[in-house]
């Protein structure tokens, strides 16, 4: 029987929720990684490891690993450093396993790789060697490498998202990187959009089409069909340019979900204090609002960039968590929703895996 493992990163550690395939009843375990803020929790289907991207105000950055779905944990930051004279790595924002390696995106922005399941790390220095590096500027959350996308077939092909710098792509395993922001607005700059400096919030890959990526940006929603070389705006009827969380369908490349928020000056809330998930079924040509089961009055909910997950069941389950601690689930691709936790610590990340019992 498949078991659904919902992985939640919060300001006060990580939580794991176990659900049956019907995704109606859940039991929660945790907190794990006590004393650490968790920005990302993810599952490696290759060996069943669960990884957590962590930072502590006392003990610094770390990547936690559980080999047994949360029963036991180890942690390490060995090698997670820019070395003497470099800035201190303060937080791990993203941990992404792919092709036998594990990648970690950190603050200040950089990318590290582990080939021993997170025990030791080596900087992929080519990213910070990019000629644009002296001009990188932080977003509101800091200068952070928060998104890592791995090509499903080519181990040397990666994309990263850095705020507020933009998207970068490598096709040679991280030796060289190219900016990938053409067509993306940067309304906070005067004049035409620059080569870099765009405030990417999240990137997700379309199922079965690795050249197609969706991007939620500070300044709108975008889609590329050429690996990021050019982006087309698909904000369309969404109620806001702004948002963080995004998910892509596990099988249909034209389906994705976003949670628009009001602008930073308006509070970064769901518009009109009525949370909703917006879904496209046609690659961003149109969007539909879905809120059945979500609170629809006086709910000033904010959802962060990593706080949406999509499972691989049929129909796909969609999940998101709020900074105010509510965790919501949909077992029908976003049509209807239920609150499955009401009072978690501030949620930074939601991810999901389908595992066998």
């Amino acid at each position: 029987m498949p078991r659904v493992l919902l992985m939640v990163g919060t300001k006060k550690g990580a939580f794991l929720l176990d659900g049956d395939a019907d995704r109606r009843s859940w039991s929660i375990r945790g907190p794990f990684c006590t004393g650490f803020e968790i920005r990302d929790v993810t599952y490696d289907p290759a060996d069943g490891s669960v990884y957590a991207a962590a930072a502590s105000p006392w003990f610094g950055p770390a990547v936690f690993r559980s080999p047994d779905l949360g029963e036991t944990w180890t942690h390490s930051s060995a090698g997670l450093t820019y070395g003497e004279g470099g800035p201190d790595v303060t937080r791990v924002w993203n941990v992404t396993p792919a092709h036998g390696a594990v990648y970690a995106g950190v603050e200040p922005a950089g990318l590290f790789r582990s080939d021993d399941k997170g025990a030791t790390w080596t900087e992929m220095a080519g990213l910070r060697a990019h000629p644009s590096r002296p001009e990188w500027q932080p977003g509101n959350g800091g200068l952070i490498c928060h998104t890592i996308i791995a090509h499903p077939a080519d181990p040397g092909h990666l994309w990263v998202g850095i705020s507020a710098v933009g998207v970068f792509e490598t096709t040679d395993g991280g030796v060289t990187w190219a900016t990938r922001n053409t067509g993306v607005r940067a309304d906070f700059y005067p004049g035409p959009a620059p080569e870099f400096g765009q405030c990417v919030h999240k990137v997700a890959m379309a199922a079965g089409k690795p050249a197609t990526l969706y991007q939620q940006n500070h300044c709108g929603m975008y889609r590329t069909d050429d690996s990021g070389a050019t982006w087309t705006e698909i904000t369309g009827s969404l109620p806001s340019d702004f948002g963080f969380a995004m998910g892509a369908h596990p099988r249909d490349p034209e389906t994705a979900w976003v949670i628009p928020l009001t602008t930073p000056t308006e509070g970064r809330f769901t518009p009109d204090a009525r949370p909703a998930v917006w879904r496209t079924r046609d690659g961003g040509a149109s969007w539909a609002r879905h809120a059945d089961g979500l609170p629809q009055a006086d709910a000033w909910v904010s959802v962060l960039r990593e706080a949406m997950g999509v499972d691989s069941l049929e129909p796909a389950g969609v999940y998101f968590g709020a900074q105010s601690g509510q965790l919501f689930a949909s077992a029908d691709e976003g049509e209807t929703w239920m609150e499955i936790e009401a009072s978690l610590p501030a949620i930074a990340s939601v991810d999901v895996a389908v595992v066998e019992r």
Partner: protein
Amino acid sequence: MAQLLLPTILTALFPGTPRRIAVEGTTVGQLLAQLDQRVPGIGDRLLVSGPELREHIKVFVDGRQADLATPVSGTSVVHVVTAVSGG
């Protein structure tokens, strides 16, 4: 040997590590290096490159705030403390 007293929140990250450990060394830095030898990885939790103490880790030698260069004796009691932080 100096007596090193570690906070529970730290030892909990390294199962089986006692809160009080006797460690050889003539400075705080040497004590922490010896500690890392005995508990691999614990140094990364306390130190940044340099090395220096992490911003919110404080060390007291016989009741006085110290840094990595502070001398210790065989009878010193060294407290490692997590500063008021977080939120």
